């Protein structure tokens, strides 16, 4: 089946595309900056669609410091989506390289790489994230590195399985018979054939990375306030949940939307790529 005919792929790609576009265009589609404050007492906790005393419309209301939630949501999306994308890029590259090399080699190297993968897979990821965040000063860059370094295992396993299959194919044998060196075989024959499953895993990992970034920021060990990220927004709305639930609800809904979209995209791509598993 062609991926373009799957409703899930369309939904996932369109939703993600729209959110990325909104995030990129954040200064254009918002009227005020994400950290802009005026008379705090007069403009805090405005309800969604309320207009403040200057006649400025707040589509999603304001938080306890009178900052516009819609503006913070979109500017936060830049950070959250950006951190997620970079982290997934890092973990996918790592996973593909480790998986492909393990799949194409044998003996000690393969054993070591597989052992490393299984070991890392069994680590509680959040615990490791918390540990690293405790040791180094929390920042967006640290979150990217940590998420990248703890997210490559599922990709590596998928790619490994796929690479084993490719290595058994006749065209690899003929490449070897022609005198192709191992590295060249991996680069020219194995890698191009394992990219699709890696892409499927990356789509799933993207949602996961964004969820974890928000989680770390929520616990105060990720992106630091006053920078707007979805995690810091949810955390800042937590204390005012009863009076102003929209402060936490808006970024939460955005988060769920991104993860649903990337999950469905990954599902759809998986079925399109592997028709035997279609249902």
């Amino acid at each position: 089946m062609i991926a373009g005919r799957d409703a899930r792929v369309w939904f996932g790609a369109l939703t993600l595309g729209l959110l990325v576009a909104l995030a990129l265009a954040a200064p254009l589609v918002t009227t005020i900056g994400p950290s802009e404050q005026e008379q705090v007492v007069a403009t805090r906790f405005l309800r969604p669609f309320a207009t403040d005393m200057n006649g400025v419309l707040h589509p999603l209301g304001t938080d306890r410091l009178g900052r516009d939630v819609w503006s913070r949501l979109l500017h936060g999306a830049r950070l959250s989506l950006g951190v997620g994308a970079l982290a997934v890029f890092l973990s996918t590259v790592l996973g593909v390289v480790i998986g492909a090399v393990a799949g194409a080699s044998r003996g000690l190297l393969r054993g070591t790489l597989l052992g490393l993968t299984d070991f890392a897979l069994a680590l509680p990821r959040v615990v490791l994230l918390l540990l690293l965040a405790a040791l180094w000063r929390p920042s967006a860059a640290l979150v990217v590195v940590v998420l990248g370094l703890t997210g490559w295992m599922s990709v590596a396993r998928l790619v490994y399985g796929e690479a084993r299959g490719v290595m058994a194919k006749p065209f690899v044998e003929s490449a070897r018979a022609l005198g192709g060196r191992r590295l060249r075989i991996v680069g020219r024959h194995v890698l191009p054939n394992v990219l699709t499953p890696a892409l499927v895993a990356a789509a799933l990992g993207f949602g996961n990375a964004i969820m974890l970034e928000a989680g770390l920021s929520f616990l105060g060990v990720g992106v630091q306030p006053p920078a707007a990220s979805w995690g810091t927004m949810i955390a800042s709305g937590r204390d005012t949940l009863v009076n102003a639930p929209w402060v936490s609800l808006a970024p939460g809904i955005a988060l769920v939307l991104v993860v649903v979209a990337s999950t469905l995209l990954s599902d759809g791509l998986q079925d399109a790529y592997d028709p035997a598993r279609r249902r």
Partner: protein
Amino acid sequence: MLLGVVTLTFLLLRMAPGNPALLLLGPNAGPELVAVQERELGLDRPLPVQYGAWLTAFATGDWGRSIATGRPVRQMIGEAWPATLWLVGTSLLLSFLLGTTIGAMQSSRSGSPVDTVLSVGTVTLFAMPSYWLALLLVLVFSYGLQWLPAFGAAGLDADFLSPGARLLDAMRHATLPLATLTLIGVGGIARYVRAAMLDVRGLPFVNVARAKGIAEARVTRRHVLRNALVPVVILLGLSLPALFSGAVFIEAIFAWPGVGRVLVEAVQARDYPVVMAAVAVSAALVVAGNMLADILAALVDPVRREPESA
């Protein structure tokens, strides 16, 4: 595995910027004082020696004292881990039962409106961050309806209640954390069970069973579900780290007195000895869970009891 985690933690601690001696003494300490404290902590010795000494102490149960509270770390963790084990274990069981039921229902009505609605529901649950779902539940059940307490494992007056009332109190406090963790798990498990059962449903032996005239419900239960359970049980073991990660957030939000909350608080206070111990204990719980899953998988699937031939 456990040794690996502990070693990794040790190396990370030593790689990290910041001198523990300086941390203990405060910013006003002179260089001589720092040197004395470093010698006292053994920081002036070579790294392998430090590692050996620390590992010996850790293995013999000497986990040091918390920098923040001054209490022995072992005592802090010892009080916390049963609460975590109870929370994670119960929610694992509940989400497994619920998830399998939903997934099985969906797979036998694949493509129907019921299946579609349930699919939307499970993928949404799957996508929900645990801490956010927790906030929603607190908003509805604690503040809105005022049915359930929002935090802690027992009320302030718990010590003065009769045994029956105390049990009820404990159950009321456990409901929201447990519900959050379970709901998060249900989404993933239901999705997985549905896929696994649909895979099995297409295999020839299912058609043979049908051709023999076995009722559809029995085919589903005895032939499809039974075979689909093997990957699900293995998934259970693999999902333990994720579940434990979820518990960290849940414990932090609901002030549940478990290892996760101890860890989060220690991280925020840079309380290194406690962080080390909490990481080691959580890794141990995960390793134990994986072993349990392997044993369960062998119970469900006789083929796995044979020694590996491939």
